[in-house]
């Protein structure tokens, strides 16, 4: 049965989602024999979204948890899931005791591919885009970090500064023996991990294809990823456009400008690949099941389905802020085969941020989850609350 948090009684699990603009910040709280325990899952928002909200959320979590966290999870390496942790990382050591930190396992070679993709993108997108305040610029930085502040380094800085010894930090993937990675004293909560895969290259196909169609082939050489530019024009005699006799022709300028645009395919593929490396986990507390999917997109869902992952749950944190690419049509009934009064769906989103074909949250996704709920009010959106405030659902086990 679903009830408001203030009505929660013994043996319940609560999912709280904060309005951090466009991003995720989740607090999961459950009852153990010695009291309430907590896991903080993701904390971030889109690059250039105001960071002032982080402090309010941080203080709220601190108050609710009294500074004791069983688990801190960074589902994947995107700023809208980790920038809050990064910007406040040096406070954690003093304020929190954290038993375990989990972050998504990524095959090292994938980082090399991302580096290749970033270099490719910088040559393909207009120079003003990566650092500019446009949607595409922000998606770029969400994936790669800002200039001089690389996302890979930010992740390393979080792990270094957050005040948890390396022995208690775990790279999580499906199939990993979770026993040492679980917080001590966990009796009433079960945690299953369905993703990501240990071999991240399984998620690489869209990015490989996007690069390949641009003439860039990825191969592994001595354990290191190598990009080779092998295009159909190898060996052909050519002259740099600027030095050619055609350079001064004004009527060719429009054609050249049009040809020089592009790159969105590669950026989209990077975004998808990172999303698919999200930690997907199901928390079981008594009979209550809560599914947290990060931003896992369709490919990750398909792999989980093929693996026979038991995705059934009473409540879900809807993937990727309600995007069309993270709630496959079959997922609604697979997760919630029966329309029960206790079913709930929570979406961390910011309405009107993306519209048109990239509308987020997508109407069909909202409808899909709504159709699995007894009451439309069980679909909770963070953007229904003021900045820094939260929505919450409680499931009784």
């Amino acid at each position, binding site marked *: 049965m679903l009830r408001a948090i203030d009505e929660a009684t013994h043996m319940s699990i609560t999912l709280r989602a904060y309005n951090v603009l466009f991003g995720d910040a989740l607090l999961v709280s459950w009852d153990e024999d010695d009291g309430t325990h907590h896991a903080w899952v993701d904390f971030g928002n889109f690059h250039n979204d105001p960071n002032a909200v982080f402090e309010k959320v941080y203080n709220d979590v601190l108050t609710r948890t009294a500074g004791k966290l069983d688990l801190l999870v960074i589902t994947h390496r995107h700023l809208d899931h980790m920038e809050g942790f990064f910007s406040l990382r040096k406070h954690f050591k003093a304020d929190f005791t954290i038993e375990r930190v989990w972050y998504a396992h990524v095959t090292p070679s994938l980082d090399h591919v991302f580096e290749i993709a970033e270099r490719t993108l910088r040559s393909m997108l207009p120079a003003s885009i990566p650092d500019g305040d446009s949607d*595409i610029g922000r998606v770029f930085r969400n994936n790669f970090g800002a200039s001089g502040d690389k996302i890979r380094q930010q992740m390393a800085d979080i792990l270094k500064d957050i005040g948890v010894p390396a022995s208690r930090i775990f790279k999580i993937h499906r199939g990993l023996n979770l026993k040492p990675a679980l917080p001590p004293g966990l009796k009433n909560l079960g945690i299953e991990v369905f993703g990501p895969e240990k071999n991240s290259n399984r998620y690489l196909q869209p990015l490989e294809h996007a690069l390949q169609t641009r003439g860039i082939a990825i191969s592994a050489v001595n354990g290191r990823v190598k990009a080779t530019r092998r295009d159909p024009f190898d060996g052909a*005699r*050519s002259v*740099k*456009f600027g030095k050619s006799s055609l350079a001064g022709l004004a009527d060719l300028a429009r054609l050249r400008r049009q040809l020089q*645009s592009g790159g*969105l395919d590669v950026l989209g593929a990077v975004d998808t690949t990172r999303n698919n490396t999200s930690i997907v986990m199901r928390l079981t507390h008594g009979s209550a099941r809560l599914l947290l999917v990060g931003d896992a997109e369709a490919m990750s869902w398909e792999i989980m389905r093929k693996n026979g992952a038991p995705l059934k749950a009473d409540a879900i944190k809807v993937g990727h802020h309600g995007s069309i690419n993270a709630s496959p049509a079959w997922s609604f009934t697979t997760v919630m085969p029966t329309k029960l009064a206790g079913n709930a769906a929570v979406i961390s989103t910011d309405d009107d941020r993306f519209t048109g074909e990239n509308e987020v949250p997508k109407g*069909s996704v909202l409808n899909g989850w709504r159709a699995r709920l007894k009451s439309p009010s069980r679909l909770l959106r963070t953007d229904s609350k003021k900045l820094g405030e939260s929505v919450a659902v409680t499931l009784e086990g």
Partner: protein
Amino acid sequence: MPGLRTRDASEPSAITIPIIVQDPRRTPTPVKVSVRGPLLAGPIGERMAVFDYNVDRDVVFPPATPRKDGSFPDYALHDMRFHQLNTYAIAARATELVELELGRPLRWGFEGSRLLVVPHAGVLENAFYSAESHSLQFYSFMGNGRSRRAYHTALAHDIVAHETGHAILDAVRPRYYEPFEPETSALHEAIGDLCAIFAALSHEAVQRRVAGSLDRLNLLSEIAEGFEQAGVRGWGSIRSLVDATPADWKDTIEPHDLSLKLSSTIYLALRKLHQTLMRRGETKLDALRTARTVIQRMAVRALDFLPPADCTLAEYAEALLAADRSVHPTDDSGFRGIVHEVLARRGLVSKREERVDESRWIEYPPSWPRPSVRDAYLFLHANRHRLALAPHADQRDFVVRDVQLKRLPTSPGEVAQIAIVYEYPVDVKLALQEAEAFGDQWITLRGGGTLVFDALGVLLYEARKPVTRERVDAAKRFLVEGSEESFTVVGVSLDDDIRRAAARRPWIAELAGGRLALRSNLAACCGRSTRPRT
């Protein structure tokens, strides 16, 4: 005038150029063809200019350069200059073929005299026509097979002719680039494929290869054979006109799939004619040549009989029959009857022949049969109650979009037919349901019609396209149904420029100034059909 040299337009100096007549792997030996000259280095001709710019490397490949006598050297197949000449010659011949059948020169659908041809634009599995940049863009990619060979779309005869077909239809009916009717985009694709098969059939080498195999997979029926490593039964084509069945276009608005409804039907008509002619005693090869001439003539002449906007496949089929009827009223050979039967069987036309009102109109201008645009307007104005202007026949403003003076091979030099195209805009506010997807926007539907007269002023055909309640409802349905999967929505920011350039969906919905405009995204063409094939 003494001292001035004038060009004799009837005898342009022909230039011989070797080309690949289908796909380099299936027809590797170049065949020499003629195009109108003279040509400058590029090659650059009167109507087209090859500009071999490569965006990925920001380089220009040196152009094919003619000798002093105007001829070009024999470049090797792998030489970029061979590709330049190949692309130019295929595109130029396809255009010349259409102009010959239409009986009039084409004027491109954009402001400019030359169509830019870019044979090696970059690395992509694509090729497309872009009216915005006045160009045909051909990309190249590395194949996926074991050999990882380069595939240059500029060397694929079907692809070059198909993209030229887009430019040709855009020249004839520029409004088809901005449809509120999904079948109009399908027509664009079908004309591209028909252009590809007619251009292929102009080569004797192809005729000989396919004359005995029209009813199974063959060089002609397979569009861009070799584009994929393994496609339908190993042919690797993008589309198959002989294999297509109604299941391929059922319940879809995707233009490539939907186009098969028309292109495969025209192909079927070609086969039926071929069989009929053989039964009448012609050899396989002669029967093919005759069938090709008949079908090509009908299919191309239909273009001048089309309505100004939002054309459906059925309207094209009607125009095809009407175009033939206009020159062969009695169908003595029975060819039109055969084609009519095939079109009717596929549900594209009704079984009975349409007849038009042949009564005289009023106030023909003295300049008839060579009316200027202004004369044509005054003539239509005097007859406005007979036009598709209702319900505001008196008040409705309209423009004469085009006056096409057509000659026929049987009457060279004489104007045999006059096609007048008129149109007007109707603004429609989106209702709540459509506004959910696009916001509070206006759309503009185009009404109007096409009138084809003979030189004496007898109306031969009328394609009416009023803006009816049904059309408005259908346009709104299209917007709602397409918004989820078929449209790339763009505004006016730099981000939108990038989105537009990367768009691979069939239509681009442009939002600016409270107005929603749809554009066919021809960059979505030359891609593989996503529908499963068996």
